[in-house]
């Protein structure tokens, strides 16, 4: 018999057993599409997280007050932090060739207000070199200048989303922005001098407002330590490209311990790689978890297919007996059932791939809660899902058919 004949017989059998074929297809489609979509989400999350961390700038080392030193978050942390701007200056002044730039800042939750518009933002009190350290680019106007640092000017540079929300369709440069702190108990007015270019991914910079730390310090005396140093909640150290970050970490740590006159650190020091490792570990776990869930649904789908195929072939033992009595060889019979199983598996696999890919593409870029979803479709997940489903369909189609061909035709015919 020709391949064409086998295919015609297969199509006829598939149509004749409509419900059964449909259920088989459903099992395959669900299995294949969920593997593809879930793995795409997992991989997307992984990519999103690492993009976000890389978006912070390159070759950075972050120093923060340690948990033991800070029992409070936000503005409260300011009263307990042991990091000062003098520390940052000391790191920079150390003459270490592996260090390119150092910037210190304080962050705090703010309500940003302009006219009738207002938006929750994070204010970053920092200095002119922050843009360089964090790789921020300016879309409009300019970033904080050294002269603003020196004068303690009340100027503000806006993150792109803050600018869009507060000044829709208006040029924000030169406009007044008011930032309210401590739940509205303190409000200061600043002049907008620049807008930061939008940062990709779910980066924070889009929702931040940058103002000179000196301007704030002039108004809040408690920001100073008793010895007159300005407290900060974070110091960023940018290393020279190619520098050994582990070594720089060690040097900076030693310097700070000496300056703080301590033997155990009252700060934590982490490189971007450390963060990347920790975060990708979390994302990896998520990715594996999603993969496992996808794998389970493929398995369940596969078992469904196997079940239906086994029942189908067993029920059709009589048909096999008739065909063999008429003169079909074992090869003809196995060929027929392979064609049938293959036709179903390929059809189910293709539909599953289409649904999986389309679902992945639809989810890509959607925001769930305040999290933007990213999906990355993996070729290997498509191949694996398709391979497994087709394999299951084939084996469960061939095996019982083959069994019905090793006995005499009359034995297959007696099977009711």
């Amino acid at each position, binding site marked *: *018999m020709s391949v*064409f*004949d086998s295919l015609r017989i297969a199509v*006829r*059998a598939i149509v*004749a057993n409509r419900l059964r074929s449909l259920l088989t297809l459903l099992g395959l489609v669900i299995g294949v599409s969920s593997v593809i979509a879930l793995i795409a989400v997992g991989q997307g999350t992984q990519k999103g997280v690492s993009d976000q961390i890389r978006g912070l700038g390159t070759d950075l080392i972050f120093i923060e007050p340690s948990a033991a030193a800070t029992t409070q978050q936000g503005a409260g942390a300011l009263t307990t932090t042991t990091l000062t701007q003098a520390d940052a200056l000391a790191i920079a002044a150390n003459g270490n060739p592996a260090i390119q730039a150092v910037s210190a800042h304080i962050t705090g939750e703010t309500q940003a207000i302009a006219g009738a518009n207002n938006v929750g933002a994070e204010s970053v009190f920092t200095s002119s070199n922050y843009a360089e350290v964090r790789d921020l680019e300016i879309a409009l106007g300019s970033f904080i200048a050294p002269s603003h640092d020196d004068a303690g000017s009340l100027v503000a540079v806006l993150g792109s989303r803050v600018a869009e929300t507060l000044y829709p369709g208006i040029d924000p440069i030169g406009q007044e922005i008011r930032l309210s702190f401590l739940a509205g108990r303190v409000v200061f007015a600043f002049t907008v001098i620049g807008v930061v270019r939008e940062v990709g991914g779910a980066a924070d910079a889009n929702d931040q407002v940058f103002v000179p730390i000196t301007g704030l310090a002039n108004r809040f005396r408690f920001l100073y330590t008793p010895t007159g140093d300005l407290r900060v909640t974070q110091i960023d150290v940018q290393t020279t490209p190619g520098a050994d970050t582990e070594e720089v970490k060690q040097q900076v740590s030693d310097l700070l311990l000496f300056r703080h006159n301590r033997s155990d650190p009252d700060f934590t020091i982490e490189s971007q790689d450390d963060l990347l490792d920790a975060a990708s570990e979390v994302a990896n776990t998520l990715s594996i978890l999603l993969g496992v869930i996808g794998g389970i649904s493929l398995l369940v789908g596969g078992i469904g297919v196997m079940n239906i195929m086994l029942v189908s072939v067993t029920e059709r033992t009589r*048909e096999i*007996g*008739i*065909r*063999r*009595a*008429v*003169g*079909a*060889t*074992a*090869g*003809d019979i196995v060929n027929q059932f392979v064609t049938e199983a293959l036709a179903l598996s390929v059809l189910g696999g293709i539909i599953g791939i289409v649904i999986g890919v389309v679902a992945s593409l639809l989810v890509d870029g959607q925001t769930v809660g305040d999290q933007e979803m990213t999906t990355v479709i993996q070729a290997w997940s498509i191949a694996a899902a398709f391979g497994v489903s087709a394999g299951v369909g084939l084996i469960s189609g061939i095996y019982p058919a083959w069994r019905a*061909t090793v006995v*005499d*035709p*009359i*034995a297959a*015919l007696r099977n009711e």
Partner: protein
Amino acid sequence: MSDAPGEAPPIERTDCVPLLSVRNLERIYRLGEQTIHALRPLNLDIHQGDFIAIAGPSGSGKSTLLQLLGLVDSPTAGEVRVRSRVAQDLGQEQRAALRLRTLGFVFQAFNLLQMLTARQNVEIALALAGFPRRKRRARAEELLSAVGLAERLEHRPLQLSGGERQRVAIARALANEPDVILADEPTGNLDSQTGREIVNLLEDLNRAGQTIVMVTHNLEIARRAGRLFLMRDGRIDEVDPGDPRSLD
């Protein structure tokens, strides 16, 4: 079947090797503890052109013998020879080929595929023999017309009467011009009128040279065969179909 003008007349077979021969054939069914001797060792020769009827009481082993002759079952002992080839020595593939081209089996229960039409049921045998699609269709129609079913080509078995199903089964058995037709009670499920028509059909085929082995309960029909065998308790004896006492 096809006597197209200009074709050479079929060569008369003069060899005396039987078409089918059975030597010490034995079939024992085992059901748990019980063993049933369906066929005691028996011998039988079937020659080209024979029209053989096998009669006997129910359970005497007629179907068992026919199934062994048709190579759809395997004997417990002894051998079935197709011409001079011992069936049990052949591989699965070769026995399938013999079933396809040499032995046309007509089952007592018809054994048609329910999801296929009469034409498609006949076409299965043709497709297995490698007929191209176009020729297959024409040949199936020709065969079904020959058994009087020209008007029933697209009917499914459930839409056909018992006699019509029997004819489809016969047409399928004839599809690849087998050397012998093995029919198990071809009239068993039919009323006497329809039964007579089926036997007329078989007689016509035999007159055209077709070898036929037929199992039957019906004495009137059995006597119309050229050779008559009687079975009892798994044994077989040839009797004279013309002798009125032979069936007592």
